[in-house]
């Protein structure tokens, strides 16, 4: 991994006015349920998927469309290092935002006189840390495919496809289609539901393996795509 790329990516992500506005809005919206019902614990905050998408959108694609990629690869950096660094930066950035959200929720609970469930906070952080890691990997894959913020469009299309396939499968009672839709959705939003531990349920191995296989697959394909990407100063970048 390359520290300069990680730092540059973090700077790029957190100096974008649009991103900052969206992040503040999302965090503020997530505080409303906590203010209304401070005793409900951290699960009421929901998950960090939208936050992760906001930070990850265009993580590679924006470098392609802005022409930064040519400059980066003029340095002695391997393309795998570049992808890993981008992934790490986005994950790190999301973790920071989640931690901030968690701290704010804790303060709201304290101010409203509700007990702060520390175990719940740890579980919330761990659950969302894994979700952020997985989402960043998926977005790395989509972002390596299309320039700019096209990765969001691809993600939307993929979700839409899974809904359509699942809907048709459910209507026609086609198990295979329902299964395919489930796998697609699980891959688009890779997570390990640690919440089930609070109900005394063990986490199934299939969920853990599905999560890590998705992350590894997305990163591997993203690196392969980047390795085959031809860059030229004369062209538009792809």
């Amino acid at each position, binding site marked *: 991994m390359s520290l300069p790329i990680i730092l540059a990516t973090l700077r790029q992500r957190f100096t974008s006015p649009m991103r900052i506005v969206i992040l503040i809005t999302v965090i503020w919206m997530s505080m*409303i*349920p906590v203010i*209304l*019902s401070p*005793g*409900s614990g951290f699960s*009421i905050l*929901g998950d960090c998927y939208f936050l992760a998408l906001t930070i990850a959108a265009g993580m590679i694609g924006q470098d392609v469309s802005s022409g930064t990629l040519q400059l980066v*690869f*003029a*340095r*002695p*950096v*391997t*393309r*795998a290092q570049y992808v890993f660094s981008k992934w790490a930066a986005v994950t790190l950035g999301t973790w920071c935002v989640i931690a901030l959200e968690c701290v704010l929720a804790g303060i709201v609970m304290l101010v409203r006189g509700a007990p702060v469930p520390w175990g719940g906070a740890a579980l919330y952080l761990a659950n969302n840390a894994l979700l952020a890691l997985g989402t960043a990997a998926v977005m790395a894959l989509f972002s390596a495919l299309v320039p700019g913020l096209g990765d969001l469009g691809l993600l939307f299309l993929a979700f839409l496809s*899974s*809904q359509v396939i*699942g*809907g048709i*499968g*459910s209507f026609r*009672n086609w*198990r295979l289609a*329902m*299964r395919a*839709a*489930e796998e697609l*959705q*699980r891959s688009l939003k890779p997570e390990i539901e640690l919440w089930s531990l609070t*109900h*005394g*349920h*063990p986490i*199934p*191995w*299939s969920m853990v*393996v*599905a999560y*890590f*296989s998705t992350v*590894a*697959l997305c*990163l*591997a394909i993203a*690196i*392969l795509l980047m*390795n085959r990407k031809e860059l030229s100063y004369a062209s538009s970048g792809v």
Partner: protein
Amino acid sequence: MPPRASDPGEVRPPRARTGSTRRDPAILLAVTIVLLALRVALHVQENRAQPAVPPSAAVSDKVQWRSLESGVAEARTTGKPILYDFTADWCAPCRLMQREIFADAAAAADLERRFVPIRVLDRAREDGRNPSWVDSLQARYRVGAFPTLVVAQPYAGAPVIIEGYLGRDYTLDRIEDARRSLRVRTMMPALPDRGR
């Protein structure tokens, strides 16, 4: 004049860029292939360990009971609530409910349309113990009697639990009430769920 080796702005010769900087991640690819193979193997194993249709449902039910895993996945995909039927082979009211509701084509079709049905068959009396997923679900929904129907939906707060069997119409009405109340709660996730 050739650029200095330490120059941060040094432009690498083409050979270096097409060689080492584009090395494919062999280890990552190997790990990915192993994990994907494991993923498929685990799914196959789970599907074998958990039959899609429990033995007691096979005879006369018109409801297509889902296995736990595929049912939960279907509920997520379609947004339908899950209808758990906690039952046991020795339970007489359960058999009555099975005959009057689950074996009735119209009622079964209606349930299939609105819910994802999952049957949780208790085998403690026959086999001495239950599969772990049955114990887990019974503990989660505090099932103390049979039959018990549970209508649950992810992110909809507390599930609705219907204990016992008090006739076809009454039970179907209660199930529909439960579905409606969950629908209202999923539309207002931020509201505090008092009285739990």
